[in-house]
């Protein structure tokens, strides 16, 4: 069976974090730790990232590794729980003596992992999970880096501006989020941005992820008679609220962030009023790199649709470039130094390169595309091509 699935099975059975390695845990390998939500409520978004990263690293190892040395990936499941993330951080930084740690989980788990990374002075890379503010310019934390596509500080203004541009009549907007920190902050920012642009926020709902039925929330939203809906939260809340609104007969237009599930879901929902914006390209582009990803996913028995693989693949490529630059022998300091000079060609998976400098561990430009399903063409169409946003100091 699939190794990642087997790992998560074992993790769930024991209700404790377990590790697996992509090779022997030896001193002559690049040792990279991962703490990620492989199970638990966020696993649907985070586990596919780490599984594709694992496939990417396995491919590198099959080819002889980097600079003649294998990459040893140690994956720990935090189940999106801060206490488990803390235990993982202790294990990875203090016992395993890793050179780099990758974090792919909910922001609520970041605190103890960041604290351990700072103490150990080992770089910490956030992948497919929200970028902490401390990775942003002009004075990023020396050990914190981020390759994730989305970032609420840039996502929200772009999205609300796009609604303003697209609206043909005064905008009455409903805001939808989940009661988790990043979604709350994003929605509060969206409210302010909407107000600044002359829109009327008619309702704001933070919907618990444990809701058995989204119709009661949709009923309340619909009563405000919005002509637009904007959601910024994990995918399940974004899409289930929209579908509940449609079943109640709501006819407005909806915009939400396009998480890794977006491409599959746009086709399933097939509704012309359902718009997503995303920092990653969709697989319908069929770029050369996407063809390579398809092959890698098939060879590595990727458990998810290949359209879920962008974040994991980009992280894998970033690690490949970083370790190549680091050379051998490697240590955390050398890796952090190489990370501070990253210039990664995303090969069309994003609108431009992923660039890190000593003053910027996030990126120099952020890119967005907007998509929706066109019922007449029966396919996903680009509403707006790559929109570049300067990352300000």
């Amino acid at each position, binding site marked *: *069976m699939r190794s990642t*699935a*087997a790992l*998560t*099975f*074992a*993790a*769930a*059975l024991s*209700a404790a974090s377990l590790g697996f390695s992509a090779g022997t845990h030896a001193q002559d390998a690049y040792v990279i730790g991962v703490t990620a939500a*492989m*199970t*638990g*409520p966020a*696993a*649907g978004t985070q*586990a*596919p990232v780490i599984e594709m990263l694992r496939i990417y690293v396995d491919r590198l190892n099959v080819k002889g590794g980097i600079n003649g040395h294998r990459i040893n990936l140690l994956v720990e499941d935090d189940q999106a729980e801060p206490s488990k993330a803390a235990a993982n951080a202790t294990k990875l930084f203090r016992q395993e003596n890793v050179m780099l740690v990758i974090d792919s989980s909910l922001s609520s788990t970041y605190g103890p992992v960041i604290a351990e990374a700072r103490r150990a002075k080992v770089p910490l890379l956030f992948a497919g999970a929200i970028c902490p503010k401390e990775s942003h310019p002009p004075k990023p934390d020396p050990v914190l880096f981020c390759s994730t596509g989305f970032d609420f500080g840039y996502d929200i203004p772009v999205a609300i501006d796009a609604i303003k541009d697209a609206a043909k009549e005064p905008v009455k907007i409903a805001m939808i989020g989940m*009661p988790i920190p990043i979604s709350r902050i994003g929605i509060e920012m969206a409210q302010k941005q909407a107000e600044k642009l002359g829109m009327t926020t008619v309702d704001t*709902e*933070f*919907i*618990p*992820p*444990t*809701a*058995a*039925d*989204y*119709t*009661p*929330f949709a*009923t*309340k939203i619909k009563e405000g008679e919005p002509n637009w809906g904007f959601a910024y939260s994990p*995918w*399940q809340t974004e899409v*289930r609220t929209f*579908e*509940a609104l449609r*079943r*109640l*007969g709501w006819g407005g237009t909806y915009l939400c962030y396009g998480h890794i*599930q977006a491409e599959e879901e746009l086709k*399933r929902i097939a509704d012309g009023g359902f718009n997503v914006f995303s920092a990653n390209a969709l697989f319908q582009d069929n770029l050369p790199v996407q063809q390579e990803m398809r092959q890698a996913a098939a060879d590595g028995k990727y*458990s*998810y*649709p290949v359209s*879920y693989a962008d974040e994991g693949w980009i992280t894998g490529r970033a690690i490949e470039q970083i370790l190549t630059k680091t050379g051998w022998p490697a240590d955390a300091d050398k890796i952090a130094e190489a990370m501070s000079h990253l210039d990664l060609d995303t090969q069309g998976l994003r609108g431009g390169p992923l660039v890190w400098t000593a003053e910027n561990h996030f990126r120099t430009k952020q890119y967005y595309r907007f998509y929706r399903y066109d019922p007449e063409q029966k396919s996903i169409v680009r509403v707006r091509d790559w929109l570049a946003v300067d990352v300000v100091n």
Partner: protein
Amino acid sequence: MSLQLLANVIVLAAIYALVGSGYVLIYRVSRVLNLAHGELMMVGAYLLVALAGLFPLNPPLALALAATCGLLMGIAVYAVLMRWMTGEAVLAAVLITIALGILLRGLTILIWTTQQFYPGASFGWRNPPVHLARGVQISSASAALVCLTAVVYLGLLVFLRFTRWGVRMRAAGQNPLLAEQRGIRLHGVYALAWGLSTFTAALAGMLLSLDAGVDLNMATIGLKAFPAALVGGLDSLPGAALGALIVAAAEIAAIQYVDPLLSDVVPFIVLLVILAIRPWGLFGSREQLDRV
């Protein structure tokens, strides 16, 4: 309260009632609190995912097979796991169900990963809205769930009151020692109770997955239905239905008039209030509580 709100209350109550009936069936017969009920419901939904993939052109067959698998899964759980807990402390049996829940979550990830699935999409079914009155709509899956809940409750009440096996189940629940002395095979009765309980859970899981898809978070809905069963009284099916209605009404009122964030805690607030006033639940048996 508008008619739409009333419709929302009925749908949510039906979800809790259908799930809650499973808690009651097992508790009533064997005094075991099945804390893996939410996971069993989730597995029922995933079974439909698998069967929808196998029979995309024949939804009734896929649904019937998934429900049957749910029934057999319950019997298998009893035969393989719970049978050996007969005669042991109730707490030990409850702990076994917790372990079972963890095991089922792990197996689900192993087989279906953490991805969200939509069995309705495999059937090409769009879950259209059903217009109940002017401006009052619910989804087709929700309408089916309400109807099915009514059928299940009616069926269970008739079964328990008028059939031989139903009477045996009641007897085993009231006095297992005497029941066995009278020739009732307790293992058969308990296995049937587990089968029926898992069957109802699977039905709930299947219909919820047809409405909004299924992922690992579905198991938490089982936990939210637990207060409904407790409010009504853990050994009473009518009590579970009434408890579900009370909890659902309180939850919808909180969403609509107070704060949607309260919807998670309201079922437990209702539970605390009821337990403070009537610890054995609205329709529960005081005698049974004393025995515990």
